């Protein structure tokens, strides 16, 4: 059992942090952020070319974080690898000591920095979860026997603000049937919609970690350019943010993130929070302290 699974199944309110591996090979800032935050959070999610922007591989990032004594959750996106590459990287990841996986479809290239890339999407996230479970049974994606089998703790993504919710919820149920054991959500801004989703999902009895983003100038700029993937900053708030200078905007983003963390803590419905920030080292310690984490 992974340390992350132990914590998540213990009922403790967990905190995970999104931490991009470097774009390039300068790993120093990544490692420094891991060391700054590792004793205050339960795991680092290492994205797989997040928002379709090229970066160091998530497996390498997850290993770098683990080498600092931190718990890693390695993201696998279906966008960039076919079933053979997903299999081989999952096996490689396991052999390097990483077992926590977040299986995602992957943002489309139009949001990223290499828009002429070929979309792979050989599998969708549901099929990829099922394939990883097959690896645990000793079979690769072609049905061929493995010599030594891995064991994973697999998570999936859900969007509590999905609209319409019904088709999304149908897929959420498929992910659970395929074998996900925990859920991390997209960034949430609307507590009302989160509560409705959590109420609906409660009977599935799966730990759900709520995504919360510290909105900064880059987030606002991306949304204004139509390049922000995932849930948009609410209209009412972004108009207010767009008029602020960079520093005031980040302060507003931090206040809102703290407010959302507290709401999630108080609601008692979620297993924890998953925090994203442009510069986690700069703003998360303060937010964690104020949230009593």
């Amino acid at each position, binding site marked *: 059992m992974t340390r992350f699974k132990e914590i998540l199944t213990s009922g403790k309110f967990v905190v995970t942090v999104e931490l991009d591996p470097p774009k390039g090979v300068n790993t120093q800032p990544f490692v420094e952020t891991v060391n700054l935050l590792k004793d205050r959070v339960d795991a680092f999610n290492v994205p797989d070319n997040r928002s379709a922007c090229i970066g160091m591989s998530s497996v390498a990032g997850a290993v770098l974080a683990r080498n600092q004594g931190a718990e890693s959750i390695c993201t696998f996106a279906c966008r960039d690898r076919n079933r053979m590459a997903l299999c081989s990287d999952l096996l490689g990841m396991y052999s390097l000591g990483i077992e926590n996986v977040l299986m995602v479809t992957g943002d*489309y290239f139009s949001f990223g920095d290499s828009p002429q890339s070929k979309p792979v999407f*050989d599998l*969708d996230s*549901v*099929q990829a979860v099922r*394939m990883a479970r097959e690896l645990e049974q000793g079979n690769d994606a072609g049905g061929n026997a493995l010599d030594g089998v891995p064991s994973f703790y697999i998570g999936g993504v859900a969007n509590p603000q*999905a609209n*319409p919710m*019904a088709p999304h919820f149908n*897929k959420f149920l498929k992910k659970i049937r395929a074998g996900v054991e925990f859920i991390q959500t997209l960034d949430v801004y609307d507590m009302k919609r989160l509560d409705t989703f959590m109420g609906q999902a409660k009977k599935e009895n799966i730990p759900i970690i709520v995504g919360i983003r510290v909105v900064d100038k880059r987030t606002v700029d991306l949304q204004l350019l139509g390049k922000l993937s995932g849930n948009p900053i609410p209209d009412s708030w972004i108009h207010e943010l767009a008029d602020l200078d960079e520093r005031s905007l980040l302060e507003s983003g931090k206040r809102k993130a703290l407010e959302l963390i507290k709401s999630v803590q108080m609601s008692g419905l979620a297993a924890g929070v998953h925090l994203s920030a442009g510069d986690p080292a700069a703003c998360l310690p303060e937010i964690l302290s104020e949230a009593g984490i």
Partner: protein
Amino acid sequence: MIIAKRKPLDEIMDGVAGYSRVLLAGCGTCVAVCLAGGEKEVGLLSSQLAIASELKGRRIDLGEVTVERQCDREFLDELRYVIQDYDAVISLACGVGIQFLADQYPNKVILPGVDTTFIGANEEAGYWTERCRMCSRCYLAQTGGICPITICPKSLLNGPCSGTREGMCEVDPSKPCAWAAIYDRLEGTGRLEHIQEILPPRNHALTTTPQTLIHKAYKRRYSVHD
């Protein structure tokens, strides 16, 4: 039908830079309907090339011909006596027709005059939309007559990605999310059970290129056996 779009004039001009006698060969089927390579478009391209060449001080002898279909040898035979008078041919057929023409006349320089884009439907005058990716395994019975391989940019088989925004596609917010539409269609016709089971991964071996199809009634003729 096959949808194509005319290549930019500059690219076509560059292609024929070394040739003084050029035949423009149109196709009277799909590319004529989508206003890219039929008889009218051949005439238009001919005028454009003549003017552009004149402005550059070059002289090109241009010929025009349009056949019923360039993807059928029967119609390409008609070009036998026309084509011999030219150094190069710009085919305004789809990629299939261009290749077939080049196969039929291997000693001629055959150049593309269009970019072949997709298989689509005629929505309204001058407006076409892609509807089929030719995946060799049709899912439309399960998905309410809406193709997730084509209509979803990620070709997802088991439901929407997390990016659906108010029922619209995150990749192109002007288009409905394929999976929101599939769900609505199936719900409206009482068939939601079709998407409650997990669809397995696609069999991409079915689409290994280049594909060949021989009708079962002709298998003996071509010495093909199952």
